[in-house]
């Protein structure tokens, strides 16, 4: 419906462009004898008219797309007879979602007797308001085009106007990044705040018992759930910052050393894309591999060395695969850091008679250490934010254990577990996912900011 009107508005704008341009052409023909008598070239006149037509129309349609739903919802709620639905926000939401489902055709019949009538009203309102807003936008487009067209003169500064509006567009585009950051922070903080109204922040951050299952009945055992997130934080650190890094740091660093210091250019040319492929494998594929191949192998190994209670979902399996996933990242960061060390330092060391490996170990690595450490911190931040591998291979048991053959769970795995499947949006269980997300966001942010600062100061030292 509104798409049809959007196309119509677009058509009006196109017509505006054509008319404006035609007028510009006439200006140009009339002023051809005297240089400077016409300010702008014809298509700028056209663009000016088209923009004036399009901008208000699109703004109105966007407004409708964003607010239309709320507008209708309010009117539909008001139409329901008093006492027809519960008084709480939750009841209203449930009622509205049923009505939406009916309107969309998801449900064949209504559960709530009032919903049927409400759905009919919804459809009627959506149609009526859709037409009102759609016609409004087309009318705005036509008015804008006419007004713009009436302003065209040979000396009219159409190009300057168009360029000013282009600049506006550029600024708006770059504001999207800020809006996204703001949206992330706002939504995480807002939902976390609601969570901390139900569960104290102290219990969340320092409690050691995590079992977020909320019971169906209030009198059931453990109905309140326990939200001590320490086992999750530990599991995240254990897998992402310890096991994965034990794999990724030596392998990534040695790979970078070999590629930058020893490998012939031809070999480097072949090996680098292979590492890039390793970096480009989707995490869900790593997760599948970890769960299907690595985890059973790890368990069999654990049983063979006498650990009888080894779990089939182990921290080691997830950590190993995550480490491999991070290798290309560590390697490319170390690569950058090593190549940034001035050639003179390397030459000096070699001239003193040191072998290449001595030069690398005693001169290059110490000199590149800040860059390497920065890269490792970025790698840690990436590892603790990684989701699919731990969801598929690490399991959901919140154990506080240092045994790598046991199952642990991580912040990201819990977020997925809490938010998939059935959810009611006000329960502490669902909200806790946002609190976990907030912690994850803040920690990765801090790691990134710190790591980038380290890398930056180090780069400046050699520039």
């Amino acid at each position: 419906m509104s798409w049809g009107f959007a196309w119509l508005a677009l058509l009006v704008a196109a017509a505006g462009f054509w008319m404006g341009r035609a007028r510009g052409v006439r200006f140009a023909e009339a002023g051809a004898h005297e240089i400077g008598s016409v300010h702008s070239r014809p298509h700028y006149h056209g663009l000016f008219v088209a923009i004036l037509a399009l901008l208000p129309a699109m703004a109105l349609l966007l407004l409708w797309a964003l607010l239309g739903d709320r507008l209708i919802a309010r009117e539909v709620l008001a139409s329901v007879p008093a006492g027809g639905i519960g008084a709480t926000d939750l009841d209203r939401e449930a009622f509205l979602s049923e009505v939406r489902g009916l309107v969309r055709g998801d449900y064949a019949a209504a559960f709530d007797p009032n919903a049927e009538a409400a759905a009919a009203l919804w459809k009627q309102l959506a149609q009526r308001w859709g037409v009102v807003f759609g016609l409004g936008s087309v009318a705005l487009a036509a008015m804008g085009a006419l007004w713009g067209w009436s302003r065209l003169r040979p000396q009219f500064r159409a190009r300057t106007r168009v360029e000013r509006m282009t600049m506006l567009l550029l600024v708006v585009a770059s504001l999207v990044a800020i809006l996204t950051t703001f949206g992330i922070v706002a939504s995480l903080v807002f939902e976390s705040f609601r969570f901390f109204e139900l569960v104290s922040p102290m219990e969340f951050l320092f409690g050691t018992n995590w079992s977020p299952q909320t019971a169906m009945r209030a009198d059931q055992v453990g109905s309140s759930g326990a939200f001590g997130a320490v086992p999750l934080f530990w599991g995240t650190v254990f897998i992402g910052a310890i096991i994965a890094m034990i794999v990724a740091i030596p392998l990534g660093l040695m790979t970078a050393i070999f590629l930058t210091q020893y490998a012939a250019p031809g070999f480097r040319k072949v090996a680098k894309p292979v590492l890039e492929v390793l970096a480009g494998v989707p995490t869900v594929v790593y997760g599948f591999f970890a769960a299907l191949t690595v985890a059973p192998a790890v368990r069999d190994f654990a049983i063979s060395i006498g650990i009888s209670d080894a779990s089939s979902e182990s921290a080691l399996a997830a950590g190993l695969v995550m480490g491999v996933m991070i290798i290309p990242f560590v390697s490319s960061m170390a690569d950058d850091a090593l190549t940034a060390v001035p050639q003179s330092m390397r030459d000096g060391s070699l001239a003193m008679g040191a072998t290449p490996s001595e030069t690398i170990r005693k001169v290059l690595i110490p000199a590149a250490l800040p860059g390497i450490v920065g890269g490792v911190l970025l790698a840690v931040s990436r590892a603790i934010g990684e989701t699919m591998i731990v969801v598929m291979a690490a399991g959901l048991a919140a154990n506080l254990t240092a045994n790598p053959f046991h199952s642990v769970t991580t912040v990201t795995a819990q977020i997925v577990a809490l938010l998939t499947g059935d959810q009611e949006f006000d329960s502490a269980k669902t909200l806790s996912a946002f609190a976990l997300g907030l912690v994850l966001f803040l920690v990765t942010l801090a790691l990134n900011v710190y790591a980038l600062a380290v890398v930056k100061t180090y780069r400046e030292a050699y520039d």
Partner: protein
Amino acid sequence: MTEAVSNEAPTDWASEAMQARIRRRYAQERGFKALGLLALTLACGFLLLLMASVISSGWTAFVQTQVRVPVTFDAGELGVTAEQAKANPELLRRADFEGVMQQSVTRAFGNGAVLVSDGAWLQLREAAMADPSLIGTTKDMWLIATSNIDQLAKGRIDLQAAEGDRPVTDAEIAAWRKLGAAGDLRKAFNRTFLTGADSVDPELAGVWGALKGSFLTLIVTLLISFPVGVLAAIYLEEFAPKNRWTDVIEVSINNLAAVPSIIFGLLGLAVFLNFLNMPRSAPVVGGLTLALMTLPVIVIASRAAIKAVPPSIRDAALGIGASRVQVVFHHVLPLALPGMLTGTILGMARALGETAPLLMIGMRAFLTSVPQGLAQPATALPVQIFIWSDNVSRGFLEKTSGAIIVLMLFLLAINSLAIYLRNKFEVRW
């Protein structure tokens, strides 16, 4: 001038001790180099292992086992005669092919083990719709076998295990042996896998539904993130004044590039679904979420591409009277576009492989039909892989690996395109 007098004797390079030390140092050197090579080999070896494991367990997903069944298209059972069907093929859509199939299968194999897939009647309908004169005749048809027979034929079942320990019954094994001996079993290309949507039966499940969901999602992602990313990069690189505001923009873009993808999923859930009430599981929401995730990647790549355009181009254009906006849009942008496109394609490849944010916004529904629009429930290929990998049924194991092969082929194609573009259009000034 004083002579530096050393009390030490000159180094005796030929001495036994010195030679031993040098040998040791050289050995260390070789060891270190070997260690580097070992690290690289391990990394590459892991990649090979991953590929080998996926391909060896996944290639059979593209093959399907079929059973030969003499099918009698009984007009009475169908409720449609050949003449009626010729006049109005739509009648066949409602005809009871399921019953016809059951009868034919029972006639051929008796009431024992189930050999033919529940969904094989669709093959009958397809055949009858292509050629209505089949009705009233009997024809040998190759019907899709059940997943158990399929797995048996592919040799993926351990026949030595006790009956309770393996997914197939002894009766099924006996039937399978008999079919094989009679030549009533064949393997064919699995068209269903590439054209179907998800299903509860592994032998009927396909990736097309998920693939189309991925396409729809990526189209939305591309339509939003590419223009916005390029425009933002142009502003930051060419016009932005150096002040606190632009600093804030730069910092937030750089940080967004490193935010875990699942956080974007939480953003999508909180803002698009709960605040704006957009439809759950829809490609449009997935596309928006992934667009926000891809945006910083595109901005960073586009800025690098703009930076690479030499200032002399700008100076020349300004010198002959172009305005600053004209300089950028007529000269800098066309020259930087290949670099921007390469960055965008790589960002799209990352978005195609992304799973976690899509799980957050509910694109993990079980859908047996192919999504038709941007607002309809859909799933995406990586999410489909995740869903299947959770399935305990033996037949889904190879389907999961098969879907991974499809995903990796697409990623390979996308990345090759990016490399090709980079090599073809890269200009060095």
